[in-house]
């Protein structure tokens, strides 16, 4: 079954839709990852500074540092939903 539409076959349309979805998924993870990274770099450097002064702060520092990581997890979930 081939429907001609301005010289484009249906297969091509489906394929390019799948391609766009893949690009979207990539952007979702990639951009969310950059966002997490930017947020974590500031917190991380502060946390490292804090726990070199006071070692007991390691646990608290780790928690603070990884809080923005949730952003990239959201990106990942969206990406999976896009690809599925």
């Amino acid at each position, binding site marked *: 079954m081939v429907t001609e539409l301005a010289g484009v076959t249906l297969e091509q349309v489906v394929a390019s839709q799948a391609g766009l979805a893949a690009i979207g998924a990539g952007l979702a993870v990639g951009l969310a990852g950059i966002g997490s990274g930017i947020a974590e770099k500031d917190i991380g450097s502060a946390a490292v500074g804090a726990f070199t002064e006071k070692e*007991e702060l*390691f*646990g*608290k520092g*780790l*928690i603070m540092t*990884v*809080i923005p*990581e*949730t952003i990239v*997890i*959201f990106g*990942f*979930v969206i990406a*999976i939903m896009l690809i*599925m």
Partner: protein
Amino acid sequence: MLKPKQMSKVLLTGHKDVLEPTIETLHDLHALHIEEYVGEDYFHIGTPLSGADEGSKKLLKLRSIASFLGIKKPYHKPINARQLSSELEGKLETLGDVVSGKLGRKSQIEADLKDVQTEIHEIEAFSGIPVNLDLCRGYDTLHVFAGTVMKGADVRAGLAGITDEYQFITGNNGIFILTVPVRYRAQVAELLAEYEFGEVKIPTISGTPDDLINELTSRQDSLAKDLESLSSEIDSVKAEYEDFILASEELLSIETQKKETPLVIATSEHTFVIDGWIPDDEFETMRSKVGEATDNRVYATIVEEPVDEANVPIEYDNPKIVKPMEAVMNLYARPKYHEIDPTAFVFIAFPLFYGMILGDIGYGLILLGISLYGRSKLHGEGWNSLFTVLIYCNIVTLIFGILYAEFLGFPLAGLHGHPGLIPGWETITLFTGLGNEHITYPIHRTHLVTTLLVLTLLIGVIHINIGLIAGFRNVLAKHGMKAAVLEKIAWIVLQVGIFLLLFGVMGVVSSMLPGAVVFVLAVAMLVAGEGAVAVIELPSVMTNILSYSRLLAVGLSSIGIATAVNTMSGMAWSSGGIYIVLASVIFILGHALNTALSIIAPGLHALRLQYVEFFTKFYEGGGRIYDPFGYKRIYTEE
């Protein structure tokens, strides 16, 4: 388990005559956490027992010897303490003499060597000048210039305009010696200044530079040889006395610790009072042992008064198998006294999450091997805990690896006509999962994303709610039922509301109404319990649950790296010839990298799920460390 060890506050009091046996007994018992006495009223801080000074002097001497010999702390067979104690004095004396002699010789040789090196350096500048350096000074009518001029300057040509009464000798290193009659001194100096003259001091030594250098170099060599033989002598002393030094350092530390104990306890003119904490089950033992040692002249009693939670020292109370996880707890914080001790939860959840993420037979075996080897080679409590935790984690990894049938990123079983690593093993389809995916054995993680995603979120819901129930218990003990329900149960109700709403959207439940009602109820409870701020916190319940999707995501990224390595090396391999070497290099380096990442990524993510998602539901931490009076012997035994 689940609770720190129950502690009692105890007081021991008696006459000063029996202080020494009391201290002796308590030290051997290694159970009483002594509270340092700081007040100064009727009681005052005690004075060290007799012999404390002498002991610390010996200890100081021993430690300086140990640092001179460069003794590290390896593991040794313990030495009998009694025997050591009897021969310690004499042996330490001999050792001290031997070492101080060697120390003196060593510093003498080193000083000489340094002198010789400076001299060589000074004279080397004059090498190649065939003049005895003695002849270069001490004249009334002659002046000697020694030094360098800028490159390309022709000193002789310049001198021709002044006088021809001079002697000009150059050496190998661009230094010259110029001798002129004193009357031309000013003129020549001016000329040399034009050539950027830099004066070099002539060493006050007799002999030609080259002879001197030869002489000094041979002296330097012989000194270096002396130093070498001395350090081999020192090494043999070190080898001979190492055990003795380590053991007697320990022995003396123990002695000193005992003798200085009065410095932390309260004493009056004739009595002493020791204030401290002891685990409940050790109190009777302590009382009877102290009584035995002192003819019942020390009165020990439990202080029955309300205690501040913050003051109680915390000792974990976990079965042996759970103990290594305490290191993971300490990294965060020790529990408080009335809090649930979550070590047992972590013991189950941490290796489980790690294994779920990694789930690869190959990496599991490699890391299991590394951690078993490391545990046998590196001693000390920290290393031991670390490697034991890694062993737990990688046993679970192996189990999940069999479940997923993955080996270094290769699928072991075939799927859809793609053969696996083990020929003939085909994937069996069991039943249909979510999103039209087929649940199979072995589970192919890359083909079951939707189902596994939902599964990880379910694990998250279970984990978080265990945390909330633990939190309920903690708040109940501290602030009563009302606060516990409003602060903790409300979150569980909120989740029920969210799920009802979700089912409403999906059409599983016909109406959205029940979900909305439960949701609003939960929000009302939270606002009542924690104030309006709780509204800001509402989304956290969703982000926390979604966070567990990393159990799948991090695992997929690890498979991704492994597959990339396998594909690259496979491509190189099939090209044949020299490419086979390249393929091996890619394979080995790639998997080495991924193995290192396999400790870091699953480890940190599994740890984070404990610390961030789980602990924030109930755990405060910040208890004092229980540090019982006594000493853990390593190098000696009684």
